[in-house]
């Protein structure tokens, strides 16, 4: 019996999958040349425990340390605030070298273009392309300024967002951005975005 099992195992091994302890038939369907792992589709053998217990539970403080993303509904925005005027100062210190005096000169991404579009965007800036203002917070806090990311305080991030939105004629000059006002900003291009509807299949090009 053992010899028979070993022979079977050797045969299956030729196809690419047979490990000691495998007791179930192959899981997911497989095409010639590719053999699914035995057990569940994701490759966990049927005799595996419900939990392995490797790793450690993360405390609320540990999660909060890294949970810095910001969603369109405003979840994740920290306390703090900043005005257009304050943002002008932040911009002229930390942003102007890469984005230009008016956010249009580069050399890096153009930030400002308040001219809207009907069929095709001429530029893809905050003013005429970005669908959510909250993305500015998410991105600037994580990635900007490019050479000194993370250097800006919460107030400074809110302020420079207010300034960029004002340059794009989206908020008035007396605007103040905070966790309440930023998610309420309606971006001009928001309704232009549609979720991918491509599918495979014969004769279909989308």
């Amino acid at each position, binding site marked *: 019996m053992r010899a028979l099992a070993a022979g079977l195992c050797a045969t299956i091994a030729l196809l690419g999958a047979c490990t000691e302890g495998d007791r179930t038939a192959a899981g997911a369907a497989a095409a010639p040349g590719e053999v699914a792992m035995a057990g569940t589709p994701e490759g966990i053998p049927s005799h595996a425990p419900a939990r392995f217990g490797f790793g450690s539970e993360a405390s609320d403080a540990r999660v909060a340390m890294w949970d810095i993303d910001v*969603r369109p509904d405003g979840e994740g925005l920290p306390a703090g605030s900043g005005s257009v005027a304050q943002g002008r100062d932040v911009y002229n210190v930390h942003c102007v070298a890469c984005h230009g005096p008016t956010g249009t000169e580069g050399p890096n991404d153009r930030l400002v273009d308040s001219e809207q579009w009907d069929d095709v965007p001429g530029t893809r800036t905050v003013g005429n392309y970005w669908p959510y203002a909250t993305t500015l917070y998410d991105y600037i806090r994580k990635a900007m300024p490019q050479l000194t*990311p993370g250097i800006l305080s919460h107030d400074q991030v809110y302020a420079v967002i207010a300034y960029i939105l004002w340059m794009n004629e989206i908020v008035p000059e007396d605007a103040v951005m905070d966790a309440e006002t930023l998610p309420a900003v309606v971006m001009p291009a928001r309704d232009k975005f549609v979720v991918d509807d491509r599918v*495979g299949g014969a004769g279909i090009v989308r």
Partner: protein
Amino acid sequence: MPRDERPRLSRRAWITTTSGVIAAGLVKTQSDAIKLVAQEAPSDPTKVPGRLVSELGTRAPAEQPKRLVRAQALSSSSRTPLADLMGTITPADLHFERHHAGIPDIQFEDHELLIHGMVERPMVFRMPDLMRYPQVSRIRFLECSGNGGGVYNRERMPTEVTVQALDGLLSTSEWTGVAVSTLLREVGVRPGASWILAEGGDSAVMSRSVPLDKVMEDSILAYGQNGERIRPEQGYPLRLFNPGYEGNTSVKWLRRIEVTDQPTHTRDETSKYTDPLGDGTVRQFSLVMDAKSVITFPSYPYVLPDPGWWEIRGLAWSGRGRITRVEVSTDGGRSWVDAALQGPILDKSTVRFRHLFDWNGRDTVILSRATDETGYVQPTVEQLWEARGTRTSYHQNHQRAWRIARTGEVTFGLGELV
């Protein structure tokens, strides 16, 4: 006679002149003879001792394929030399690169992955924890969705362009790691969850939203590539790998997964990696890479030295599954024949195709088109223009063409067909 003025002799010539040399008294000892062989006939490796074993192999001096670097900038890319490669696996040091803020230096022993959000147990995993979980390996392609953008503009269709410059943001590796589903089983996903946010530990903290169904189906947290640990430019020590999805979603240097009930709409899924369609809409979350093929030989700047039998070779792949057919045309798309596919044909991996071609020496254009298991056929550029407009920047998977001139010179030929 000074050394550098000695005539260089082939082995045959050396043999015929040896007696004369000895007669002239130039060779007096065996040592002199070995030196003379080494100097005068170095092309005969059967007559000189070889090099010894080493701890790390190197390529032959004459074989030095290189990535094509776009720009020395923090946000930049380098492209795989597709025309130099055989089979489907990309050597890890030639895998294409796309970084948004350079390559971070992360130590294996320091790296942590946090999984939290809509889970029963938020957890932190260190690399030894992750490597202890059941392991999977999958041979899969990775392609940047911006690949091929250089041949979409009707007015600026290039001719003198290599397949590396055109489509080198494509590579194939055997990726090894732990299934995302294994770890999500460990932390316990709460009802109502539908997306994850994956975030990198580079200085761009690059992050993308990915549907939960996708990562549960076949995504892996990869720490191995082609038998070795993932290289720093591929995300060392840990990256997300989403088979068949646009490369940007396979977040490198992965440090955090948050399970959510909605996409986060990060910068790289709103202002970038979205597709204006020409009708006033912008397609978002266009994640799957549609079927595509490229001929890698013959391609610019190769010159066919004479007519006769040549083998057209290339790669085909689909993010929706397996390639089922690749057709080749050698008459500018008027007629098509099935190319031979080199098995095994794997899910969401490249397949090598070949077609034996008897070139009659006349001017012609060759093309390839792939079909995947859904029945989808790689479209023409006109079909893509019709469906998506002419101003999209990503997912340009249309058929490519190469012109073969009477001189044997090969140039990119799509411009002649549109």
